[in-house]
């Protein structure tokens, strides 16, 4: 099987439920290389579940999920491992490993998933930390970092394997406007310099407007709008229109 639409990530009629609660219903969308897709929606509408389905932390009940040429819903662990190396994941609260320093957090994917020498690992970590503005903080523990610094460190860990796809779950949550804008700048830089496909789940309409080339709006598990910001602002769907209004 192959991904005929030549997309980086594609959802085809995906549904997911937890017990009796249906979280996603027949959701379809796709993302191309170098494109930034922002997923908006009220809390509990399945936005974060969508990201976890892409990285195969969850399996859908129905439908297909494509990551480049791989339909990932039925892949075994070794094949999933290969697919996951194409992706970086910035978790909502960064999900840094508490007992590791910033350096060690970044070293985990490099030492576990590649055969790079210690010198190469050092070089890559220094480069990525400079890129996110944490060059002097690599020996710090996560508990010593501010919210914005934690997000930057989480982003650095997501970028350390140079992913083709970057998934970001609420990158601006808990941050002030200036700091969240700096995180948006880093996401945009990644997209523009490396042609990375971005999929960003957010409540921050201002950030979504800045980062997103396209917006997908979820409501009660259904995809109710998919298109550029300007188009959704004039959508006939009242919920979608309301959600993209700052």
């Amino acid at each position, binding site marked *: 099987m192959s991904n005929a639409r030549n997309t980086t990530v594609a959802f085809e009629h995906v549904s997911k439920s937890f017990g009796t609660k249906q979280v996603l219903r027949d959701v379809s969308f796709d993302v191309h290389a170098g494109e930034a897709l922002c997923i908006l929606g009220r809390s509990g509408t399945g936005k974060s579940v969508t990201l*976890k389905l892409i*990285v195969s*932390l969850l399996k859908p009940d129905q439908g297909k999920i494509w990551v480049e040429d791989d339909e990932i819903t039925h892949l075994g*662990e070794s094949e*999933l*491992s290969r697919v*996951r*190396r194409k*992706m970086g*994941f910035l*978790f*909502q*609260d960064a*999900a*840094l*490993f*508490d*007992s590791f320093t910033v350096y060690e957090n970044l070293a*985990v*994917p490099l030492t*576990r*998933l590649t055969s790079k020498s210690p010198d190469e690992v050092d070089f890559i970590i220094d480069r990525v930390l400079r890129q996110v503005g944490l060059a002097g903080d690599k020996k710090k523990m996560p508990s010593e970092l501010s919210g914005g610094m934690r997000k930057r460190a989480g982003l650095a*860990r997501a970028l350390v394997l140079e992913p083709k796809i970057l998934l970001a779950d609420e990158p601006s949550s808990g941050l002030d406007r200036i700091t969240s804008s700096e995180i948006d700048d880093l996401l945009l830089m990644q997209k523009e310099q490396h042609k990375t496909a971005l999929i960003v789940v957010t409540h921050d309409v201002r950030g979504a407007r800045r980062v997103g080339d396209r917006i997908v709006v979820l409501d009660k598990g259904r995809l109710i709008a998919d298109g550029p910001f300007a188009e959704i602002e004039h959508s006939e769907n009242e919920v979608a229109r309301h959600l993209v209004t700052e």
Partner: protein
Amino acid sequence: MTSIFEIAGEVSIFGSRALAGLFQRPFEGEELRRQLAEIGSKSLPLVIASGFALGAVLTLHTRSTLVTFGATAWIPTVQALAFFLEIGPLVTGLLVAGRVGSGIGAVLSNMRATEQIDAIESLSIDSFKYLVVPRVIACTLALPLLTLFLDFSGLLGGFLSEYASSRLSFQLYITRSFSSFEWSNFYAPTLKTAVFGFIIGTISSFLGYTTNEGAQGVGRAATRSVVISSLLIILLDVLLIKFIFFMFPESAL
């Protein structure tokens, strides 16, 4: 009642996976070393201090009883047998269940609540193999060693207490301590603590790793880890004593 059996089944499968993980690559040696340091080395001060205090207090109580029968010469023997056969293994098990069990339950449930386990999985690292197996193995290996420390610190506490009362020499104290001692009195009860360690590691890892209650679940997992591990240690202690008597009849005094 059904749910108790269901949970018991889930814990058994969880423990079996942890044992099987010991023989599967990658071996996570670095994480095992970290956990041995966390579980073993950092429990040493508590274990040694407890053993020393228990030894001193037990000798004081024993002396006040035996002195009425003119049998104070038996104090070192009673002390050694009590510590190596029962006090050492059981008290070490309960101390480690309190210190380490709660720690493992809290750490793993916090990692679950803060998506650190998801982050590990998203990096294609087997989180069970990386987080659970080293903790279970470290508990299993550390308990017998910690038990020895508690046994000997108990003897030392007992000696100092006895020396303060009777000026008994250290050499004579040790000679009397082990005069009625069989090897099976030493290794069978000490090795049974490996089972206690496996129980502590498995129960606390299970409760922490499988929790899905967010931040509230952290405290709950820590408390449950201590309570359930301690109860199981006490129950298993009875069963294992029967087993030891069956396997080593000479150790039944």
